[in-house]
């Protein structure tokens, strides 16, 4: 029995959940040594260019609030609810069909834009398609960002796109809003559910990922009117499935393949690697399922969850009715209500020796681990269609606020169809 228990649980040093903010940055070897690979940094971590090497303590409640805003906007997009507020702005009306809210943007990469190259920190986002950054002269407004704002007039490889061009007409599937015209130049608009938006010119520019990965003529949004909850970050690298996404635009080189490892603590960098170089041999695949009204998303078919080695009694229709998608921009996994209830009760039953404590925001299963050096938690694994069974690392199961409040890092959706 003891042996069984060991196989089915993680023993975690509690100190590892709270790395000291001063610890120096540890670079991902894969990002450093692999072709077409970028370092991924945690927005608040010691590795981020934006924190000058000092970790900033993120406001977890704010992170979870923005995360919920993102999830709400993804759900509203999928349920075809279109919020009919129109965003008035001088250069164009943006009919407000929300894209997916920026959310809390934890993970960023640095990409060079223009000639000469201008490095910018962008959120990488598999849940949206259009790459955009703020642009001088910020005709309307730009939120504050750490790096100098990109100035297209100082780049010799920048071109506006005409509004009669094919990319302009493909804006509606990439952003939810059709392109419009301003002096025959194509104008894009993307509104995020939480009152933030970016409006500007659809343009073509040189993108430099690494010294040997340079792409001329990448379509992106040059934002002249941006209101974001996203201070500090220059914009977004869209990795969705639409034809305007970065993987689609570089398909000839990378065949729409990319992989990433997110840093599991803010003192490490992860990697975002384009192409099939150095993909781990232990990878297990599951087919992408297409979500109606969400063709840009990477849909997944979850078929089961095990906790501590035991498969939860969840009928497969609980997952198949609403479907599922994977999103690098959503922080906390959202499960259908019945699946979450089963996960929560199985997890709590196996954590009964630890005192429960109050919920935080969307996380309702929390424990007071003060006074403990280690915690033993049951392993959690997801089964996907096609036979892939994925065991989550210990970092993927808990969300630590403080020693006296460490929570199960899952939340339930409000509605079976979500």
């Amino acid at each position, binding site marked *: 029995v003891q042996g069984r228990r060991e196989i089915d649980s993680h023993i975690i040093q509690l100190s590892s959940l709270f790395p000291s903010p001063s610890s120096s940055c540890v670079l991902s070897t894969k990002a450093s040594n692999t072709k077409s690979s970028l370092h991924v940094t945690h927005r608040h971590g010691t590795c981020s260019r934006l924190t000058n090497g000092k970790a900033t303590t993120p406001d977890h409640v704010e992170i979870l609030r923005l995360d919920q805003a993102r999830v709400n906007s993804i759900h509203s997009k999928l349920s075809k609810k279109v919020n009919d507020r129109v965003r008035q702005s001088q250069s164009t009306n943006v009919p407000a069909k929300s894209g997916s809210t920026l959310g809390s943007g934890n993970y960023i990469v640095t990409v060079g834009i223009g000639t000469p190259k201008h490095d910018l920190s962008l959120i990488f986002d598999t849940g949206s398609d259009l790459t955009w950054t703020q642009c001088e002269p910020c005709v309307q407004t730009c939120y504050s960002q750490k790096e100098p704002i990109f100035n297209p007039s100082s780049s010799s490889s920048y071109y506006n796109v005409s509004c009669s061009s094919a990319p302009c007409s493909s804006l509606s599937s990439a952003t939810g809003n059709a392109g419009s015209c301003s002096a025959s130049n194509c104008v894009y608009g993307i509104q995020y559910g939480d009152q933030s938006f970016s409006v500007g010119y659809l343009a073509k520019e040189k993108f430099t990922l690494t010294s040997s990965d340079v792409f001329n003529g990448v379509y992106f949004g040059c934002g002249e009117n941006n209101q974001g909850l996203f201070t500090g970050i220059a914009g977004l690298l869209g990795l969705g499935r639409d034809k305007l996404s970065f993987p689609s635009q570089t398909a000839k080189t990378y065949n729409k393949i990319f992989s990433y490892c997110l840093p599991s603590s803010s003192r490490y960098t992860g990697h975002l690697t384009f192409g099939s170089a150095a993909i781990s041999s232990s990878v297990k695949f599951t087919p992408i399922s297409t979500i109606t009204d969400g063709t840009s998303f990477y849909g997944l078919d979850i078929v089961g969850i095990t906790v501590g080695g035991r498969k939860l009694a969840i009928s497969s229709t609980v997952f198949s009715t609403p479907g599922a998608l994977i999103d690098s921009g959503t922080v906390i996994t959202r499960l259908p209500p019945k699946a979450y209830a089963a996960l929560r009760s199985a997890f709590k039953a196996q954590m009964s020796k630890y005192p429960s404590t109050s919920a935080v925001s969307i996380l309702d299963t929390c424990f007071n681990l003060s006074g403990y050096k280690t915690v033993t938690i049951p392993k959690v694994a997801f089964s996907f269609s096609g036979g892939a069974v994925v065991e989550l*690392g210990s970092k993927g199961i808990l969300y630590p606020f403080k020693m006296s409040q460490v929570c199960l890092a899952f939340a339930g959706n409000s509605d079976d169809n979500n």
Partner: protein
Amino acid sequence: AAIFGNVQQQTLEVVYDGAGGRVGFAPNGCS
């Protein structure tokens, strides 16, 4: 829809194969 978020993706290498129409996970693929 259920949404598989980035907390759960930590310590996994996540592979998007758009051309192959599949997503892959490699546990401990990041060390």
